[in-house]
């Protein structure tokens, strides 16, 4: 038995067919960025980059919420989680991310009540069960996760659950794409857009980006065949000199996306400027609580004083996140910086490009 809608897209024969098509079509060198860290992970895990013809180079994008959450926000999370009486909840992804000094696990070892949740609704359930405690949820994510986070906040408001709040670090893809394409160092000629972000957002908002910068943008899935289909479509468009948006993830992505999810997301969150770790402030790139929901903002609820984050001077994750530097070209890669001793968030998250390189892609001869 196989997993329906998953295993079909791991078919080696189909993958080989698409690879040959890509090789046949790519007559010149092309540089394509996969935006999403999940795609990076899948590419590395399946060794797709090794199988592509030399003409096609993949560079890895900033689509990992763990990697782009500012150190200041992580330090704030650690400070809030350390407050006696607080139950601090987070997706498993964020628990190991080091702040300036330690991580959420360390806070737990010192007596902080830090708990892992799989769904934001589990955090809300903890607030229901412990009305005498303050339950804080670390709401990280891109447009895929923001609707889930939004639902927890809306539900807290509806049920009058006053002991629930969220620490937001939510970001959006299109501003990051624009920033990458506007950079004077940009090498990216075409994009694989993040399929699950597009499941929510659709692809309308990518059309003006594709037009303004003259690039192909292809929403793609995460399985090897999905990725190769996406790459084939980008290469096909590049070879023909066309730009625009072409969907390679039809079973999940439609042009209009998921209206219901967007409605709730926009009713709870508004767009704001947002700093991205390693990259800097990007205008209109974040999602923060609207005024009507401001009472659920953990940042306002808990005064943790001034936070002065300290970044490692060695880490070049900003360049990695924008596709300017391959992880193994960072001088600290595999030396000062490993998943056990990460200097930057891109080495912590399993989606981070540095961690994916370290895990799957170290050159065996280099060890």
């Amino acid at each position, binding site marked *: 038995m196989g*997993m329906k809608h998953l295993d079909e897209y791991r078919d080696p024969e189909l993958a080989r067919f698409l690879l040959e098509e890509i090789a046949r079509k790519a007559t010149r060198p092309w540089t394509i960025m996969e935006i999403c*860290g999940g795609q990076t992970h899948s590419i590395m895990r399946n060794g797709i980059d090794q199988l592509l013809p030399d003409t096609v180079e993949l560079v890895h994008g900033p689509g990992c919420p763990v990697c782009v959450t500012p150190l200041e926000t992580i330090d704030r999370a650690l400070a809030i989680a350390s407050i006696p009486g607080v139950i601090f909840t987070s*997706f*498993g992804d964020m628990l190991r991310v080091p702040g300036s000094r330690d991580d959420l696990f360390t806070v737990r070892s010192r007596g902080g009540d830090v708990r892992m949740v*799989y769904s934001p*609704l589990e955090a809300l359930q903890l607030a229901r069960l412990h009305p005498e405690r303050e339950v804080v949820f670390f709401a990280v994510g891109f447009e895929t996760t923001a609707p889930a986070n939004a639902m927890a906040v809306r539900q807290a408001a509806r049920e009058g659950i006053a002991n629930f709040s969220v620490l937001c670090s939510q970001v959006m893809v299109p501003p990051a794409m624009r920033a990458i394409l506007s950079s004077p160092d940009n090498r990216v000629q075409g994009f694989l857009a993040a399929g699950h972000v597009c499941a929510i957002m659709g692809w309308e908002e990518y059309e003006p980006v594709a037009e303004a910068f003259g690039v192909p943008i292809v929403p793609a899935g995460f399985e090897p065949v999905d990725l190769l289909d996406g790459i084939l479509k980008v290469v096909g468009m590049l070879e023909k000199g066309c730009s625009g948006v072409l969907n390679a993830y039809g079973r999940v992505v439609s042009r209009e996306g998921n209206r219901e999810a967007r409605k709730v997301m926009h009713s709870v969150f508004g767009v704001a400027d947002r700093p991205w770790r390693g990259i800097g402030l990007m205008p209109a790139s974040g999602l923060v609580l609207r005024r009507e929901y401001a009472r659920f903002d953990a940042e306002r609820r808990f005064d943790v004083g001034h936070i002065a984050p300290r970044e490692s001077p060695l880490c070049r994750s900003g360049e990695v996140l924008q596709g300017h530097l391959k992880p193994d070209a960072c001088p600290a890669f595999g030396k000062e910086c490993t998943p*056990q001793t990460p200097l930057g968030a891109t080495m912590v998250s399993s989606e981070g490009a540095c961690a994916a390189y370290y895990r799957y892609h170290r050159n*065996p001869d280099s060890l």
Partner: protein
Amino acid sequence: MTEPFACPLPLLRHETIQMAHGAGGRLSQELTRQVFMPHLGNAFLDLLDDQAKLTLPSGRAAFTTDTYVVSPCLFPGGTIGSLAVNGTVNDLAVGGARPLYLSAGFVLEEGFPIADLDRIVGSMAEAAGKAGVLIVTGDTKVVQKGFCDGIFINTSGIGVLRQEVELSCRNLQPGDRILLSGTAGDHGMSIMTAREGLSFQSGISSDCAPLNHMIEAMLDAVPGIHAMRDPTRGGVAAVLNELAASSSVGIDIEERSIPVRDEVRGACELLGIDPLHAANEGKLIAVVPDEAAREVLGIMHAFEEGRDAAIIGTVSVDHPGMVVMHTVFGSRRIVDLPAGEQLPRIC
């Protein structure tokens, strides 16, 4: 009681563990007589002495200890008790020893339900029976509420080493075959999806089982097996990396040959966990000279706990110290050690 079998519990005056259950007085005695002895009683334990006096067969002995703190303590396919027995039995057996006697030390949290304890001790007796070992000495302590997570168990075990076998993780030779005795990741995913609060109801069953009988048969047939390990915490990936490092050889494994149960794979996909990183409690990895690999595999297949056994890879002279996976697509990637505790992820 209207139930057909005589449950000893109603005789106890408490439904939960009290501090006095660990104080050596009346309640301690009650607990021993009514929970521990009915399940575990044997000629050694029945004496209620402070020590067990054993006669060991001649030859070298193997001795091991491990402490179990798994949460939740009851999970599909086992309990912390069966885990504590099987874990120690397997630690002896993979070293080429015949496990004989175990000790069991309990740390109980005040307020722990005695009915759960009864179930746990019952599952220990069952596991010991299956493995053919005796629990010959034990101890119970009670700590205040909040000082431990319900129940912790330490088991130590003693066994006699077989004469002719020399198993060591430094023994790997290029050309050896890597055998995995069954599906990867069952226990780890069982525990992860059984954890309170997570939105799962998968009911994935742990693979918790004693492996000594199968190992005995394997070594009877092929005493020259080079190495054996049970891939518990850190999973198959951790053991393979250790083996490669200890023997300074490379290990190549085939993605398509690694058995994974359907629902385990489903849970792994959903939570973003690599089945090779998830724990097992009833599996072993054997490194066998190429010419004997088929024979050993056939023996494993004859046992329930080795039904899904497979040859998953080969030892090589290339990339010493590293484990390399050959994907179904024909690419290669490193199989790394898991970085710490396995955590479900959303991205």
